[in-house]
Structures are given as C-alpha cells and as structure tokens.
C-alpha cells in the first residue's frame, strides 16, 4: 500500500509521543513492504526531503505566520496541502493517515480531492489535555470532532481514550479501533555504563536515582512527584531525583522544588536527546510517571523496556498498560503520599523490583513491538480501502 502519513512532529522535531509513534509506525510499515510518505513540518538543520530507514520524509516550510496558534496551524496546513497535492501527482496514494488535529485539515482535503479514505489517530484530545475554556480550545475541539467525523476509521491507543472520544464526540463504537503505542526494543539493547551515566548527573553509587521523564506541563503531574520528595527522602535519604524534559511550567515547578526545602536533591535537566534519555532511564532505580491525564503513557513502556521498575498513576492508558504489583506499581494521581508509597514499594524490596521488571519486559515484547502495531494498523487500512 502507498500511505500518506501526516504529522506535525517527526524526528528530530520531537515534542511528545507523536513523533516517536509516527517514526516507529512508519518504519515498521516500510519494513513490512508498504510505501510510507511522511509529510511533516520543517525543523532547523533538517533537509526538506530525506529517506529515513526507508521512510520518505518531506518537511514543509511555512511561509506565513500569525501570533494565534490555531490560525498558524491552519496556515501551515495550507502549505502542507500544497506539498501533498504536488506529491499526489507522482504517487498514487491508497489512503491518508492523519495524526491528531494539527494536520487534520490537510487530511480532509486529501480525502475529498482524491476520493481516497482517511484514517485518523487521536493521540489525545483538547478536552482531556487542558479542558475547553478559551475560543482556541473550542476551535481545536471542533477540528478534532470534525476529523473523527470525516475519517473512515479512528484509531486510539487505549480503551480509556476510546471511551473518552466515543462519549465526547458521540462516535459509534465500531468506528473506533484500539491500537496501542509501540516500542523499539532494540534501542534498549545497547550496553550502558550505569555508573558513568549516573555520575554525569551527580548521582553517587550509594544513592538511589528516582527518574521522571515528561513534558513540564500540568497534565504530567510532575508537581505531585516533587511534593512527594520530602516524604520519600524521610525514608530514603539516599534518594536523588532527576526530572527530564522541558515545558512552560518549568519556572513554577522549580518554585515548588524550592518550597520543599529539598531543592538540592532535585535536578531538572531540560530537554535531552533520545539516546541520553535511554541511557539515563537504563541507569535509574525507579521511573515515576505521575500523570494526571495520560491517553497512553509511552514513557512507562520505555521504562519497562529499559528494565527499570515503574511507578505510575492509575489513570487513562497507564491503567491499561501496567498490571499492579506484577509489571509495575500503581499510585493514586495527584497524591504525593501515594507516590511516595509507590517509590518506597520498589526501593524497599530490590528482589520484588527485579521480578516486576522481568514480567514487564516479557509483556512488552509480546504486546508492544512495532511489528505487532504495524500489523494491526494494516488491518485497519485494508478495511478502509476495500
């Protein structure tokens, strides 16, 4: 099949999970014999066209701007649409696969001028991310609904997301398919010198590294982990906390860290390249995912792939990925005491922690390889092109 994949982020333009998802899926689809063309936005230092692991990647420059984000998004859709229209003269696509609302207008146009089906993956919703409280959020919510209405099939990564969009957008259950996120296990096979990685971040051999990876935005719940730091260190004074990621909440979170009087135990690294995140994850004693809203939670899978015990909020997709006390530990969202309990559960019993990581690795190998995810996605494609 010839697949036109639309996404506003694709490596190295990495913001959240969408870039990794599109890369993993496109690569696995290509390996299974399909022709994948990814049309995305430009990023400083990247070519406007290149082949990455067999995937054809087109990066589109946006020639016009506007201070308002939604207007800007609609403008970049126009430039992407031009690129897709040109490309469509050369490649006879079988379908278009849109990732999130940001590229939905291009996908809808494509569907109407080529009369080919559109599939949309809804990775999260505006309603769930930040609620509907501004004119922009209502516009985004509207575009999200519109994309699911126009799509022949809608893909979500978890049952909780299926429930959310079926209720919120009033979609028929049979229109929505659940295909989880995948993970490239080979990224975690390289040997890592744990002690050298830890020492780069000021963690001594006798200390416990509690890691958190995520965008610094409210829905990731990182504030609740920071508030748990004094409780955790009361029992585990050797614990050190590393928070990887950037986001607009950074100043606020640093203020919260200051207020705990344990600021010196908490390190904010900012954005780190993928390889460094893998090295750091592999070197951690526990990975905490304290999200408040999480449609899937790929970072938990990454922790499990790296062989690190994970402590996660029992919300959304995370609640489906983890089996409590079998492949990870559940804690209550927004409850620092509960997060502290979860971290303690792992740090206090290394034997149990190792058992959790072994179970977790077995489970993700079976369920979350990109080959499996690509196969399920192709079934959806086959259904819509029929």
């Amino acid at each position, binding site marked *: 099949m010839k697949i036109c994949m639309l996404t506003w*982020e694709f490596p190295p*333009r*990495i*913001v*959240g999970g*969408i870039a990794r998802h599109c890369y993993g899926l496109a690569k696995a689809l290509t390996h299974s014999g399909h022709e994948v063309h990814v049309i995305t936005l430009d*990023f*400083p*230092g990247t070519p406007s066209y290149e082949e990455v692991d067999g995937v054809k990647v087109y990066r589109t420059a*946006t*020639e*016009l*701007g*506007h*201070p*308002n*984000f939604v*207007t*800007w998004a609609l403008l970049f859709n126009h430039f992407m649409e031009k690129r897709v229209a040109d490309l469509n003269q050369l490649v006879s696509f079988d379908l278009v696969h849109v990732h999130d609302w*940001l590229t939905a207008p291009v996908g809808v146009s494509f569907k109407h001028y080529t009369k080919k089906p559109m599939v949309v993956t809804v990775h999260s919703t505006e*309603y*769930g991310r*930040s*609620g*509907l*409280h501004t004119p922009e959020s209502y516009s985004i919510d509207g575009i999200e609904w519109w994309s699911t209405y126009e799509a022949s099939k809608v893909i979500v990564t978890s049952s909780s997301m299926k429930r959310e969009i079926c209720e919120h957008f009033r979609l028929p259950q049979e229109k929505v398919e659940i295909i989880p996120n995948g993970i490239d296990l080979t990224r975690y096979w390289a040997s890592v010198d744990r002690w050298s990685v830890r020492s780069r971040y000021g963690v001594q051999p006798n200390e416990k590294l509690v890691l958190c990876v995520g*965008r*610094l*935005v*409210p*829905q990731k719940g990182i*504030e609740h982990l920071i508030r748990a730091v004094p409780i955790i260190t009361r029992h585990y004074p050797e614990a050190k906390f590393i928070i990887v*990621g*950037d*986001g*607009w*909440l950074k*100043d*606020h979170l640093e203020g919260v860290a200051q207020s705990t009087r344990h600021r010196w135990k908490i390190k904010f690294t*900012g*954005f780190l390249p993928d390889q460094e995140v893998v090295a750091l994850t592999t070197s951690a004693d526990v990975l905490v995912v304290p999200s*408040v*809203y999480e449609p899937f939670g790929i970072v938990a899978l990454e922790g499990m792939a790296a062989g690190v015990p994970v402590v996660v909020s029992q919300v959304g997709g995370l609640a489906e990925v983890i089996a409590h006390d079998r492949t990870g530990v559940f804690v209550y*969202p*927004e409850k620092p005491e509960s997060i502290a309990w979860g971290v303690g559960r792992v740090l206090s019993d290394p034997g149990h922690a190792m058992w959790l990581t072994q179970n977790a690795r077995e489970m993700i190998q079976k369920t979350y390889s990109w080959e499996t995810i690509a196969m399920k996605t192709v079934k959806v494609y086959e259904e819509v092109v029929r």
Partner: protein
Amino acid sequence: MCSNSSTGFSRGPALPEEIHLLCTLHNIGATASEKSLTLQQISEWATMEISTLRSYLQKLTELGYVQFNKAEGVDKYHVTINGIRKVLSIYS
C-alpha cells in the same frame, strides 16, 4: 491555579508573559536566523511596548530560547531549537 472544569484537574498557573511572547515569535515564523525580526517588527506583531519587549527578550535569550544577531547594525531575534521545543510542548 486555574481549574479545568472539563476533566477536573488543575491546569497550573497562567502562561508566563515571556513564554507567551516566545509562542508569538514562533507562530509568526521567526524560527531561524534568516527569518529573524527586529524589535520594531516584533513589537508590531506582539502589540507590545519596546521596553517591555526588550526585557522579555533578554530573559528568553538568557534561558537559551531566543538568539539575537546583529545585521547591518540592527539587533534581530529568532527562536532557537530549544525555544521551538518549549513552544511545541505547550500545544502537544
């Protein structure tokens, strides 16, 4: 803290003004040195006084989110790769 009435969790504090300016710079396309803009141009897009703008830009430059270069004796500003990531994190 503002509350999210739809999903019930706290959305955290309001977006800091300088980050709002960073978003504006990004959305109007000042994302590479060849697309950098003068204080005057930014002031018109952002509808912001030059003096306020200057202090926000200084903070953003110190944080590594904005870079300035001198072209024909004029200071011009653009968003760095870290700045782009910062902006995208808000919308993703």
